């Protein structure tokens, strides 16, 4: 009896599934790109009414909340429809499902920060086939998947900035160390290599990089590594920590130690994490790109693509509202600009 009933429920289910999948099989040809006007802005104007969706790595992450709000401000300026969707955990597979959803909804522009450069590639391609323009920001996919990548900063820009910040504070001479994330973090390693090259310049000849420590982007480990650096190198003048977790942990250690105000710390951090350490004098300055500007630029870049002003080719130019004019570089990349430096004078203007 039971076997029969289960057989029946299995059959019912599969029938339900197949009908559901088949019943609408003729509507697949719909072009969902009907959001904006068909006439491309030959005049170089951004079309009104574009639907722009932001898909961050993770929602409710303060960094992405700020960048997406930057995007929202831009979308309001060019009178589009803004929305933010995304997974609550930063995984590539859940981003795929959101990309699929946006494809079905017929978004004109999708601005996505990729949790995995490859895993969302297929879904991005499908979205583009469905008529959407896809701009990556903050974290790129493979370059053949998306239309454009809005890069927050170049590795070279970071290296120059970080070395300059530390050099200015230690008077251009002395031993420094780097506190990085994990030993195989691609970004970090690229930056560190360029910092080493930067340090070879004559104006930095009196600065010696003694070691690179790895805090694994773990608060406690970074804290202990900082402690270790200071006991192994008693004459250490400064630490660069180009990772938000590392720089905050190092600042916390320094602020409670005898080295406060004596050993210089700078790096890449967020104003909210670093505010108290800037105010109590542990840290003079640190840097990061402005995520709000990043989202703002991504929205304008997507809208320029969807309006036919640009196609993503190297050398094309477009105007991004208050940020001014941008030119597309090699591999369809647009760079936001040099990092923003935060110190006591401006830190309270930022909330992320």
């Amino acid at each position: 009896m039971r076997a029969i009933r289960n057989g029946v429920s299995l059959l019912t289910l599969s029938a339900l599934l197949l009908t559901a999948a088949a019943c609408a099989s003729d509507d697949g040809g719909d072009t969902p790109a009907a959001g904006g006007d068909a006439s491309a802005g030959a005049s170089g104007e951004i079309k009104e009414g574009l639907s722009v969706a932001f898909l961050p790595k993770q929602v409710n992450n303060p960094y992405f909340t700020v960048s997406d709000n930057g995007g929202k401000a831009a979308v309001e300026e060019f009178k589009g429809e803004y929305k933010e969707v995304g997974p609550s955990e930063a995984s590539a597979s859940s981003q795929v499902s959101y990309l699929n959803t946006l494809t079905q909804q017929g978004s004109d522009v999708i601005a996505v920060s990729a949790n995995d450069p490859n895993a969302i590639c297929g879904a991005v391609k499908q979205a583009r086939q469905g008529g959407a323009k896809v701009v990556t920001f903050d974290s790129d996919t493979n370059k053949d998947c998306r239309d454009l990548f809005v890069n927050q900063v170049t590795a070279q820009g970071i290296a120059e900035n970080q070395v300059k910040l530390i050099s200015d504070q230690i008077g251009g001479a002395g031993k420094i160390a780097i506190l990085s994330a994990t030993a195989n973090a691609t970004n970090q390693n690229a930056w560190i290599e360029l910092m080493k090259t930067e340090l070879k310049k004559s104006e930095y000849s009196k600065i010696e990089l003694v070691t690179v420590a790895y805090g694994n982007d773990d608060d406690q480990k970074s804290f202990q590594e900082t402690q270790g650096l200071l006991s192994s190198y008693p004459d250490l003048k400064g630490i660069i920590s180009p990772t938000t977790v590392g720089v905050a942990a190092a600042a916390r250690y320094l602020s409670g130690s005898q080295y406060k105000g004596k050993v210089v710390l700078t790096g890449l951090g967020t104003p909210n994490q670093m505010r108290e350490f800037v105010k109590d004098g542990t840290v003079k300055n640190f840097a990061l790109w402005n995520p709000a500007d990043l989202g703002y630029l991504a929205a304008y870049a997507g809208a320029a693509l969807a309006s036919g002003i640009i196609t993503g080719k190297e050398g094309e130019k477009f105007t991004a509202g208050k940020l001014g004019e941008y030119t597309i570089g090699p591999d369809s990349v647009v760079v936001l600009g040099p990092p923003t430096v935060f110190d006591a004078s401006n830190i309270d203007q930022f909330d992320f």
Partner: protein
Amino acid sequence: MVRKRLGTWDVLVVAVLALVVVASSVLVDGFATSRFWGFLLLDVIPIALIALPMTLVIITGEIDLSVASVLGLSSAVMGQLWLSGTPLPLILPLVVLLGVACGAVNGLFVTGFGLPSLAVTIGTLALYRGLSYVVLGDRAVADFPFSWTGTFIEPLPGTTVPWVALVVLGLAVVFGVVLHATPIGRALFAMGNNDQAATFSGISVAKTKFWLFVVTGAVASLAGFFWTMRYASARADNGAGLELAVVAAVLLGGVSIFGGRGTLGGVLAGVLLLITLRNALQLADVPADTLTVVTGTLLIISVVGPNAASMLRDRLRRRRPA
């Protein structure tokens, strides 16, 4: 009596699923499209696949929480093997062997040392996930040939139904027949109801449970292979947290967390209900946090519901003959 109650829960889940499908077709733009169902089935495949052996495991009164970590470890090992030049047709059986080994470790601890499966598999959940980071670190291996990755999301000609979904359906029939129409299946229910009674009636409880864990490991590694192909990316964190979706779907499908009760048809309906609801709400722009709340509530209802219903029934029944 028990059987009758089960039947009603099955029917209820299928009815709710039908209701969700009908309501969403009317209310949610883009729901009643073949494309939606194509995407949905791709999301369903790994969960449905692992839910099959998980159903059997939970019916015997055990649980395997390490499945998502086995999936992740398989993915990481796949990536490493591919980097070292192993061809994919050889990687597939190797990965399944790995799943078998992971399952055997679980099975050995549970049946050999008589430890509770909840504790053992929480341990191996962490262990296997840790191992996957040892194998691949935070790298992603993504240069699998498109001739493979594309094939795994390929729909059946003329439809949007991925062919892999049919394979899963075929496996579901096999598991369904084993569970509901063979002496092995009856033994699984007996174990879930009462281990000792099952032992005295001549069933080798330990041996059966051991092999169930092995099968679960093997299926989880198959799911890992599919996952890696579908997302074209081998990563140590692949499928993290998936075990909860699987257990939620199994319980939603009417399988008792205490063992001894449940049907495979109900579980498939549970998987479909969970994913359909999630994707429909997502399509309706419901934020991710609300989605988590909905899934959590569904899980609570699915655990409390059948128990509350049976208590109510017992009380009514006791009153009637008096």
